[in-house]
């Protein structure tokens, strides 16, 4: 019975994708199925979260093959919360896409691809097998390629080619690393790897493999100096697509880094995690400085994804209980906030006609509600109390001060300030200054149709409310992050759950 909690979050979007393909001639029905499927995915995530919260780590062996021979699905608190947040974002952006994605893109298969993407993301979070993780990465990747190119605008093809090329290199890197690790240990099950990797005698070779994983996942999660594909592509597709990419895709890379570098490669921490700390600092700085040079909302936000990834890697690299609490908390907070900012950018484009800061303005006057809805995630991103971002940064900086890593703490605070600078830039240009084409050029939210108001602005309001809620009622979320961090630092529970689990 318990295995259904693990299978459902993968099976639901997969089934939805298949139904959407079957219904490709009945577009009205397809939209209903797509939205319902996204909602059921959220429910499956909620059930899994509730189950893990009550009963601890869940594991199930697929096809009745006992671990480590078969493929294991595992959900600890980190996996469960990531699946849940994927469900929330998938549902919110799914609704948004009903009004945002145009006819042409919908006809060419937006809905099936969207659910395949969600399948890949969820699968990556739940799997307990390294090769299976590779397969889920590819599922996610092929869907993201197609979504990125969907619509075939020139600028999209340009972005998609660069995105595809570098990501293909990263997956091959991942595959080679998996192969070498398999050659050295004879297993692919992550829990079994955690047991066997310390017994391998060639320590130097193991560190090399660890660095290969670091590079492969580093490209996925867009860390310095491997991030150049992200700002080249994320601003090109439909808004709903770039919002879900911004929220989830790089975070799968971060999740994979957290998983492998707390479970498998924990023996040469002095080398690997110190390298990660340097990478984290540089990622934060380059991302935020890159953003300062941009003038288009989505490009600014894309660079901010990079700098925020740095914070999560910082939490992992500190490798203390508080550091990992911060990393998990930051992951959840960032996914909500960043997706929301992209959604706001989409509405701003609808109201003013562009995302180029030089061509728009006057939004504060014409639609103060949107201004508030932008301000909440923007301030949260910069880390202003009492929003979720403040607590995320607070925990991380405190964790770094505790082990006297002064430099990284200083960088984290500085980057917070520079983030504020970028957000005030968007605020000043898009909201405060008058529209260059005259005052009445900016529409208000009231000018949208009722359907647009519900489906475009609704998810933004809910996500903004979530940000505020996490900021004001931090304790439950902090408890969750504490449990997740405890499990990550003591993998014994995870290993027992997998290897001791009866089929």
């Amino acid at each position, binding site marked *: 019975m318990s295995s259904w909690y693990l299978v459902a979050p993968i099976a639901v979007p997969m089934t939805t994708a298949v139904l959407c393909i079957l219904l490709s001639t009945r577009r009205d029905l397809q939209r209903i199925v797509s939205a319902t499927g996204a909602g059921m995915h959220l429910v499956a995530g909620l059930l899994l979260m509730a189950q893990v919260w009550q009963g601890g780590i869940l594991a199930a062996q697929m096809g009745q093959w006992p671990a480590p021979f078969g493929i294991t699905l595992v959900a600890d608190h980190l996996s469960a919360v990531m699946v849940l947040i994927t469900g929330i974002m998938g549902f919110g952006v799914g609704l948004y896409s009903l009004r945002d994605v145009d006819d042409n893109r919908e006809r060419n298969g937006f809905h099936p691809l969207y659910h395949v993407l969600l399948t890949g993301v969820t699968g990556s979070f739940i799997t307990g097998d390294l*090769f299976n993780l590779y*397969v889920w990465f*590819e599922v996610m*990747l*092929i869907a993201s*390629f*197609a979504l990125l*190119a969907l619509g*075939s605008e*020139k*600028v*999209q*093809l*340009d*972005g*998609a*080619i*660069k995105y*595809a*090329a570098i990501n*293909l*290199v990263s*997956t*091959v890197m991942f*595959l*080679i690393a*998996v*192969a*070498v690790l*398999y*050659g*050295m240990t004879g297993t692919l099950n992550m829990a079994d790897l955690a047991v066997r990797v310390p017994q391998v005698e060639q320590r130097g070779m193991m560190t090399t493999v660890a660095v290969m994983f670091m590079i492969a996942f580093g490209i996925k999660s867009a860390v310095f100096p491997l991030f150049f594909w992200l*700002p*080249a*592509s994320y*601003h*090109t597709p439909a808004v709903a697509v770039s919002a879900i990419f911004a929220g989830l895709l790089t975070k799968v890379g971060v999740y994979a880094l957290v998983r492998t570098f707390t479970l498998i490669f924990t023996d040469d921490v002095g080398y690997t995690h110190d390298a990660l700390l340097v990478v984290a600092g540089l990622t934060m700085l380059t991302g935020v400085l890159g953003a300062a040079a941009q003038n288009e909302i989505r490009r600014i936000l894309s660079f901010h994804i990079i700098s925020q990834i740095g914070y999560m890697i910082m939490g992992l690299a500190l490798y203390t209980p508080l550091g990992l609490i911060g990393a998990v908390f930051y992951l959840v907070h960032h996914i909500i906030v960043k997706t929301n900012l992209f959604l706001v950018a989409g509405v701003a484009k609808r109201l003013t006609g562009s995302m*180029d800061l*030089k061509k728009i303005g006057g939004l504060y006057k014409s639609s103060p509600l949107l201004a508030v809805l932008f301000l909440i995630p923007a301030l949260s991103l910069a880390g202003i109390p009492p929003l979720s971002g403040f607590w995320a940064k607070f925990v991380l900086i405190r964790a770094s001060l505790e082990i006297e890593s002064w430099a990284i703490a200083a960088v984290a605070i500085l980057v917070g300030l520079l983030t504020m600078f970028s957000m005030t830039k968007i605020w000043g240009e898009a909201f405060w200054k008058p529209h260059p084409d005259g005052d009445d050029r900016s529409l208000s939210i009231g000018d949208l149709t009722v359907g647009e108001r519900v489906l475009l602005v609704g998810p933004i309001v809910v996500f903004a409310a979530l940000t505020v809620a996490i900021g004001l009622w931090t304790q439950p979320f902090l408890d969750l992050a504490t449990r997740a961090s405890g499990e990550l630092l003591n993998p014994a529970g995870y290993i027992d759950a997998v290897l001791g689990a009866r089929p």
Partner: protein
Amino acid sequence: METLVAFTVGVMAAGSVYLLLSHNLVRVLFGLILLSNAANFVIFAAGGMSEGLPPLIGRGDYVLEAPYSNPLPQALILTAIVISFGLLAFALVLVYRGYQELGTVDSDRMRLAEPPHPDQDIPEPEEPDRMHVRDASRRVENVGGPES
């Protein structure tokens, strides 16, 4: 046997890196194909190689009797081949569509998503004929710089 495969992988990887560094996207594609095949060889070698030992269960047996070769790497390679076939087929079509729309396969001249700075000059391709840069610069300018 392992030594031979190791050298083959080395040569393939070196060749693919050379191709990947090209700004001609067709070469980049070839580089990716070569690299993914090199990865398959790595799996094969890492899984342990043996000659003439089929991973088959004998008549009347229920488990594999030693000596046998490890069947798992072959399954992994098969999966990897199928996946990379799909991805590379998509990448090929993507580059072709890019060529149709942008008129070039030179990645340096694909500057729509990230328009070049006004005072930045993009070097002319060394072998324009081989990259089929049919009046690409003009096309790119037309769409890329509405404000410039």
